[in-house]
């Protein structure tokens, strides 16, 4: 169906109300014209012939939007469009092919001020640096999907906007590579916006990948954030669900602050140790929340719990971090079934009481389980000697797990009551972390074993052989 309003050459509009007679007449006349001119045109619009020349000057998108009736869908054919635009009515904007919207002035490329607006499949270049966002939303029930945003300011910004969906967008900061994180904008930034869903977005090189402030019941699932300051940053975001996200090369994977009743489930935060304060997951002033099934690998601190109470932190997988778990002034939290593998320091705590810790797997501890219930009958009290030593000078980290260090630590057995203790450590890491790779190359190991044995036997025979 061909729409009314703006010249048909540039776009196609579908509408819901069926009594637009003018529109039908125009469509019919146009069809007759095209056929009579010998052009093979389908009933649907021929985008190829309608696509504007890339070299021509950008098309002003605002006019197209103004020409679209409320509730209609404007489909943009390939081409370069000029921003900024303000959308003040409910409509759908859909890019077909490579649709690029360029904005050169310091205001949002797309500003949505109406409810129920949907934007799909457009690339947005926000060229001006500063505090402005590529897309700014001040309206409820908005849907932004498959947008590719290159920005020198913010990516997507929601203000007082509820019930929105932000899905499968790619947001990249495109300014000077040397710009410090603090001078960049956030990828997706929510303020006072509730019950939004942020799903499967990819955010790269921004300040905070996903920043949520004063926004309740936000669902953040399946996003990937890399090379940014914080992957996910929640402030006063009660009831947030953070599930299945991934972070790499950020300073901190998820920073959760001032939050109650949230859930952090099945996220992966890796390789964030480049900054001295880097953490996989930081919980600050967090209460009654669940942190479960997350993986933190290669961070400076796997999980840092500060001023937080009554949280359930279980079945997380903390591997090759400098420090697996750090507790500061946190009480009544439960740590159960976590796996601590190849961390330099398993866990440290200060000013933290009444935390229940049991059934965690510590690979630096060998337990005894005579009753075969899966937990050790010998508790694991974490010796803080090595921690104190490397705090005095980090050069001593070279002594990590050296035989003499273990010997020295064992001599240091005073004040064991104050040590962080797992009352019944697990004998196996939690599922999903079973030994990988060992079953590969079995043939090679067997062959190497046989060759070495034969070589050894040859040399031994050489030795015991009588003189010829």
């Amino acid at each position, binding site marked *: 169906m061909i729409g009314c309003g703006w010249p048909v050459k540039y776009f196609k509009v579908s509408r819901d109300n069926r009594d637009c007679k003018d529109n039908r007449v125009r469509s019919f006349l146009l069809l007759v014209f095209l056929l009579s001119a010998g052009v093979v045109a389908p009933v649907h619009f021929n985008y190829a012939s309608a696509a504007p020349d890339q070299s021509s000057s950008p098309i002003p998108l605002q006019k197209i939007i103004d020409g679209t009736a409320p509730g209609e869908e404007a489909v943009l054919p390939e081409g370069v469009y000029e921003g900024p635009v303000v959308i003040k009515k409910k409509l759908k904007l859909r890019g077909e092919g490579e649709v690029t919207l360029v904005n050169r002035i310091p205001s949002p490329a797309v500003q949505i001020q109406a409810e129920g607006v949907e934007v799909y499949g457009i690339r947005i270049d926000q060229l001006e640096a500063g505090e402005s966002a590529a897309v700014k939303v001040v309206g409820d029930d908005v849907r932004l999907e498959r947008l590719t945003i290159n920005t020198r300011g913010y990516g997507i910004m929601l203000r007082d906007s509820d019930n929105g969906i932000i899905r499968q967008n790619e947001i990249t900061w495109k300014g000077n590579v040397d710009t410090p994180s603090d001078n960049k904008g956030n990828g997706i930034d929510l303020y006072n916006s509730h019950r939004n869903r942020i799903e499967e977005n990819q955010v790269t090189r921004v300040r905070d990948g996903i920043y949520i402030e004063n926004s309740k019941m936000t669902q953040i699932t399946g996003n990937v954030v890399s090379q940014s300051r914080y992957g996910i940053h929640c402030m006063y975001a009660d009831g947030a669900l953070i599930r299945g996200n991934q972070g790499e090369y950020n300073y901190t994977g998820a920073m959760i602050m001032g939050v109650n009743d949230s859930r952090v489930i099945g996220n992966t935060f890796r390789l964030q*140790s480049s900054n*001295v304060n880097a953490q996989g997951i930081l919980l600050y002033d967090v209460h009654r929340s669940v942190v479960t099934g997350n993986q933190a690998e290669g961070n400076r601190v796997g999980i840092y719990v500060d001023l937080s109470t009554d949280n359930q932190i279980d079945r997380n997988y903390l*591997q*090759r*971090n*400098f420090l697996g778990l750090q507790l500061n002034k946190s009480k009544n939290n439960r740590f159960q079934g976590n796996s601590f*593998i*190849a961390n*330099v320091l398993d866990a440290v705590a200060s000013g933290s009481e009444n935390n229940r810790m049991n059934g965690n797997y*510590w*690979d*630096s*501890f060998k337990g005894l389980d005579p009753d075969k219930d899966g937990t050790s009958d010998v508790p694991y009290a974490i010796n803080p000697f090595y921690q104190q*030593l*490397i705090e005095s*000078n*980090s*050069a*001593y*980290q*070279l002594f*990590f*797990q*050296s*035989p*003499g*260090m*273990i*010997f*020295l630590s064992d001599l240091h057995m005073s004040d064991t009551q104050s040590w962080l203790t797992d009352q019944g450590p697990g004998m196996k*890491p939690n599922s999903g*972390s*079973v*030994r*990988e*790779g*060992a*079953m*590969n*190359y*079995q043939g*090679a*190991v*067997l062959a*190497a*074993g*046989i*060759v*070495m*044995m*034969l*070589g*050894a*036997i040859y*040399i*031994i025979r*050489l*030795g*015991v*052989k009588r003189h010829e």
Partner: protein
Amino acid sequence: MNDTLQVALREIKSGFRNPWAYSFLLLFTIFSISLLMIHSQSFMEGYTGATGSMLNLILYLLPLMTLFLGSFSLTSEKEDGNWQLLSTYPLSTLSFITGKYIGLAAMLLAIVCFGYGIMGVVGVITGHPFGLLTYYLFVVFSIGLVLLFLAVAMVVGSCCSNRWQALTVSVSLWFFAVIGWNSLLIGFLGWLPYVWIKPVLVALTILNPAELVRLFVIIKLGGGSVLGPSYYRWVDWIEQPGGSYIFAGVCLVWIIASIGLVYWIWERGRTRG
């Protein structure tokens, strides 16, 4: 060159007629099987707490074994009068020393390879195999330890006049390099200005074969991050393929320097009678 090979072959022959060699062969084989049992309880490849414990166990046994066999072999040459006899032959001291080193290395590596060979085969048969990289790095770790500590053992054997002396010095060196290293260094470095600690520690680490090989293997097993930001550059160097050549180069310098020292000691003894 031919002389060197003759000495090496003679060393292998006398080595495997020595009951010590067989007791160590048995010990190391049982030890390898124990490592396999520890490994079968670990849940991850690469560097883990269990791998660290196994490396430490190897670190306890292999240097001591090498120091004993190596130093005893040299002192016995003096005690039994063989060297006095050989000195009258047209055999250069360097050929003798390198021949001894090669022969002893072959003997010790045969012991190590036999143990690891059994470990690899039994691991695959029982369904608890080592990962190829871990297995390979354990072998490299042990070979590195043997070659470097053998160089130390040669120096010990050259300086001591009999087996008892060699035994005492070997145990002291082993204790210093493996067990007491950290305590002594922490005590000693505490006297130095803060900024000197790291460079001095690194220099001393290169001088201790046990630490040198241990750190190389930890980094190659992917555990470099445990050393922390102070050593990022080092870890980066060693992690890349060229890092292995650098390590091999350092080991070679170590061995050549030790053999040079041993040569000097023996040559001095030969010329002065």
